[in-house]
C-alpha cells in the first residue's frame, strides 16, 4: 500500500469507523486503530467542551455531548490548529435546535469571544489626546478584534448570567432586530448588545465613511435634535468601551 493510500484509508477509518477499511489494515492493527479512533474523537469533543462552556451549561451535559458528537460526525477538522474546530459549531446547533435560536447564538457569542482573546493587539485612542480633531472629516477606525453579528434573543444576558454562575433569566426574543458587538479591551474580551441603529453606524465606520457624513445620515433619519444627540452618545460609549483604535 502506498503512503498516500494508507493515509487516505486511515482518514476514512477515523471519519467513518468502517469495518471494511479497518480490515484492510489487518488484525494486528485492530487494538491500535481503536486507540487512534478514541484519541481523535475525544480530542475533538474536549475541544468543543472547552470552547463552549456556556452552551454546555445552558443545554446540559447530555445534550451538549450529543450535539458535539453530531458535529464530530458531520464536520471533519480541517484547519492546522485544533483551536479552529469550533468555528462551525453554531451552524450545527442551528440545525439541532431550530426552535431555540438562543443556543446557536450563545455558541456564536462564545466563539467570537474566543477569537477576540487571541486577536491582534491594539492601543485604544485616549480621549484626552483628541483636542483639535476635525470631526466632520474624521474617519474612525475600530480595534482589529471588533466584530458584530446579529441576534434575535437575549443571549447577552444569558451568557453573562451563566458566566457569573447566576440563575439565567428566561430566554426571550428581542422586540427589535439587534446585534452583539465583541472586541478585546487589553487582554479581556468584551461584548454588548447594540441596536440596529448603532449597528448601521458601525457598518458605516467599517466602510471608512467620514464621521460628518454619518452624522448627516442620522439627522436625516432622526431629525435635527435626536440625530446629533445620538451620534454624541454613541461616540462617548465607544470611548468608554475602548473600541476606537485610531482617528484619521
Amino acid at each position, binding site marked *: 500500500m502506498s*503512503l498516500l493510500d494508507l493515509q*487516505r484509508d486511515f482518514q476514512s477509518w477515523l471519519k467513518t469507523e468502517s469495518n471494511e477499511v479497518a480490515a484492510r489494515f489487518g488484525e494486528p492493527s485492530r487494538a*491500535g486503530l481503536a486507540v487512534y479512533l478514541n484519541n481523535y474523537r475525544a480530542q475533538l469533543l474536549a475541544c468543543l467542551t472547552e470552547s463552549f462552556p456556556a452552551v454546555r451549561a445552558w443545554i446540559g451535559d447530555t445534550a451538549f455531548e450529543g450535539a458535539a458528537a453530531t458535529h464530530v460526525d458531520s464536520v471533519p477538522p480541517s484547519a492546522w490548529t485544533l483551536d479552529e474546530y469550533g468555528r462551525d459549531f453554531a451552524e450545527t446547533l442551528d440545525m439541532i435546535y431550530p426552535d431555540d435560536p438562543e443556543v446557536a447564538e450563545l455558541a456564536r457569542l462564545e466563539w467570537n469571544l474566543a477569537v477576540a482573546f487571541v486577536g491582534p*493587539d491594539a492601543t485604544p485612542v485616549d480621549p484626552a489626546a483628541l483636542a483639535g480633531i476635525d470631526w466632520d472629516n474624521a474617519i474612525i477606525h475600530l480595534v482589529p478584534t471588533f466584530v458584530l453579528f446579529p441576534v434575535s434573543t437575549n443571549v447577552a444576558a444569558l451568557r453573562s448570567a451563566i458566566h457569573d454562575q447566576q440563575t439565567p433569566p428566561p430566554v426571550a426574543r428581542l422586540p427589535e432586530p439587534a446585534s452583539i458587538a465583541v472586541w478585546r479591551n487589553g487582554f479581556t474580551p468584551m461584548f454588548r448588545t447594540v441596536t440596529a441603529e448603532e449597528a448601521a453606524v458601525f457598518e458605516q465606520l467599517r466602510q471608512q465613511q467620514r464621521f460628518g457624513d454619518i452624522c448627516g445620515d442620522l439627522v436625516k433619519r432622526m431629525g435635527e435634535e435626536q440625530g446629533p444627540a445620538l451620534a454624541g452618545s454613541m461616540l462617548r460609549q465607544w470611548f468608554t468601551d475602548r473600541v476606537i483604535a485610531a482617528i484619521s
Partner: protein
Amino acid sequence: MHGKHLFGLGLRKPHYADFLDAAPVAVDFVEVISENFMVAGGRPLNVLRRVRERHPVALHGVSLSIGSADGVHLDYLRRLRELIDAIEPMFVSDHLSWSRIGSFNSHDLLPLPYTEEALARVCNSIHRAQEVLGRTLLLENPSSYILWPGGMTEWDFLSAMCARTGCRLLLDVNNIFVSASNHGFDASAYLAGIPADCVRQIHLAGHSQGRELLIDTHDQPVRGSVWSLYAEALQRLGPVATMIERDDNIPPLATLLGELDVARGIAAEQARRVA
C-alpha cells in the same frame, strides 16, 4: 558528548502566574506548544514574551505533519517562522508522524510506515521545513499503537532521516518505553540503534495502561521504568537537555519541580559514574 545537562518544564496555563512571579522558577528552559502561540496577539503571546525575558524557550509543535504524503503546508511554516523570529527559541521541534492528508487534519500524531517511500517523503518535507524556518528541526520519536508491517525499525528510520537531512532528534524516553511495550521490541536495542550524537533534547512523561496497549497520556508522573530507561539513555548520550511533559491532570508547579529534581539526580549519578 555534545551538550550540557539542562532541565526544563512545559509552560502550561495553570503555571503562568508562577513563571511570572518575582521569584524565578528553578528551570534552565521552558518548552511551549508552538501552535498555542501562533496567534495574532492577546494574553498568551504576552505571557510567552514575558517568560522569554526570563528563560530560554523551546518551541514544540504538534501540527507540522512531517509525514503527510502530500507534503508540508507552506502557510503553517510561515506562521511558525514568525513565532521563531519573535521568540528566538533554543529548539524547534515536532514529531515523526502525520496528522493531515488533503483537507483533513486529525490533530493526532498518527503512525508512519517505516518504508523507503515514507523516508523519502519525510526527508523531502524536512528539507522544505528547514529551508523556510531557517533552523535545524528536531524530530521526536512518537509513541505508537500500530506498527505497520514490512518496514525498517524506527531507530534505523530515525538514523537515516538524520543522516539525509541534518535534522536532529528529540528523544522521548517515555515514547520508547510505550512503543517497545506495545510492539514487543527491546528498548535497549532502540537506544543502541539511534545516532547518539544527533540527540539534542529528551522528553520524559507519564503513561497509562489502556485495555490492551500502553497509552502515552501525559497525565501521570514519570514511571519508575521510564526513569530507569532515562538513566540508560544518559549513559549512551551524555549531557543533554531534559524536559518533563505534563499536559493533563496538571499538578502544582512544585510537584513538577520535584520530578525535575529526580531527573537532575539521575543525571548527576550518571556524571559521577563517567567521572
